[in-house]
């Protein structure tokens, strides 16, 4: 019961803090693409892959007092910070979740900017296409972000690194 919620809490436990809703969305999507057992359904939205289900689960966890959400004004907009509360840690201790290498994977992702994770997750969303088609998608659907060729290359290398480090749950 509430296992899917517990997995999200494990991500927050591994990362200590995640700054930004967009970042949280993209971290879970990328982890899912690396075969970690997250089952939130994603669709393509403004900022790339987005899951309404994930938004809902996070809200529920906040309501239950297991996750702390802090809203901060930053420049012209608000930013949200997420961390696990004490009762969240206590609740999580009831679960034995087998997610090898999750901590390292999440730390690696959390160290990146939200903009970069948006690019990485968009590339992964179109991973059934060949590289040239993916680039065309990025430059068409994300034209407002003005990603450069270098950033796309960097994102591909980052994905390769994640896979080489065997963060992929199936490989490990």
């Amino acid at each position, binding site marked *: *019961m*509430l296992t899917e919620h517990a997995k999200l809490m494990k991500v927050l436990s591994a990362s200590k803090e995640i700054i*930004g*809703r*967009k970042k949280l969305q993209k971290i879970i999507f990328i982890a899912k693409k690396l075969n970690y057992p997250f*089952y939130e*359904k994603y*669709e*393509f*939205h*403004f*900022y790339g892959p*987005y899951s309404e289900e994930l938004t*809902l689960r996070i*809200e*529920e966890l906040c*309501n*239950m*007092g297991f996750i702390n959400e802090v809203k901060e004004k930053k*420049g*012209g*907009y*608000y*930013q*949200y910070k997420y961390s696990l509360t004490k*009762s969240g840690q206590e*609740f999580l201790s009831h679960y034995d979740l087998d997610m090898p290498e999750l901590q390292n994977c999440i730390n690696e992702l959390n160290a990146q900017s939200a903009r970069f994770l948006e690019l990485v997750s968009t590339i992964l969303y*179109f991973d059934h296409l060949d590289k040239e088609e993916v680039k065309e*998608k990025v430059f*068409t*659907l994300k034209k407002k972000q003005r990603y450069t060729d270098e950033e796309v290359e960097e994102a591909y290398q980052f994905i390769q690194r994640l896979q080489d480090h065997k963060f992929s749950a199936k490989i490990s």
Partner: protein
Amino acid sequence: MTYASEKLPEEKVFKDPVHRYIHVRDKIIWDLIGTKEFQRLRRIRQLGTTFLTFHGAEHSRFNHSLGVYEIVRRIVDDVFRGRPEWNEDERLLSLCAALLHDVGHGPFSHSFEKVFHLDHEDFTQAIILGNTEINRVLSKAGAEFPKKVAEVIAKTYKNKQVISLISSQIDADRMDYLQRDAFYTGVQYGHFDMERILRVMRPREDQVVIKYSGMHAVEDYIMSRYQMYWQVYFHPVTRSAEVILSKILHRAKALYENNYSFQADPVHFYSIFKGDVTVEDYLKLDESIILYYFQEWQKEKDPILSDLCNRFINRRLFKYVEFQPSNEQLMKLIELTNLFKKAGIDPEYYLVVDSSSDLPYDFYRPGEEEERLPIHLLMPNGEIRELSRESEIVDAITGKRRTDHKLYFPLDFLKDFSEKRNLKKQILEILQLTDKDGFIL
């Protein structure tokens, strides 16, 4: 003449209780309707288990898909045609995407997707792009045409205007299902002035906007949607049936994985249980197949599978109490779980928290990381304004998510005091189903 521009010698019409008539002139649309993958939608109810609550809700995804097509046809042929912001070359693509937007839905897809981690949108893509009759029809209009249709439905097509016709906060999909579901369930909610909305829709770069004069019709549409969600879609009795359905699928899968010997061998489920379902396997599934197994599984030796199927087929549903997630309630849930185990009632199948949530309307705030495409009004001076900035009614519900949690359980098991009487009484007390003298309410 190319296949894409080919018209039928005479217009075909379908009688429809919501739109009166659905008009087909394009040969490709007629051919798509005739494919076996599209005809399969006749055997999948639009509202899944809702027919167990509202007995009229027997309409299919076939009806709805035709309805969405008809709404888009009216928009592009009667409202957008000839307007400089509309590219007529996108007409056929919009119609095909509207018709096929739900073609990947399976039987009782809400439960199936949750239990087996499937996504009907993946199957929609696979059906449009794979070795199917639909793909062969679409390919006749151009080698790249199936891909474009798939992209519109996946919301990754370059022209956002086309996407927003089928998928946005005011789109043809919602406009059809609200009216159709209201008609078939028999409720008085869900009605709004669609003709008015269609007349005031205007194509703009990257989106479809609504003329300011149509704002009140849009307000009505948003309120209709809100009421339909809480009165029909999230009805607690329907959710009880969904809970039981999900648990049947869970149980069948668990038995299969433990090499249980089924009397009615679930051959249609094998690839789903194994997690390697192909499009071909998927297309063989419809509600008649699923209900056949549920009928047969009532006779299985496994008491849980047999009982759950009996409940679903004969509408002996679970009862519920309100459950507001909090630390205190979770402790209560853990206690109930232990008591259920002691009473010999497996909590994995018979004690279930179900949540429903809806956000009636929201808009994108720059930098706030929200993801919803807003409804934009076209003001008399040509300015574009977000709807909730102009409408006080919409502003009152904007961004306000409503969530409902319920705890489901088999009251009949708990009321059966022939064994474990004290434990069951204790459970009923925790569930607050007894009065101060201990009588069951």
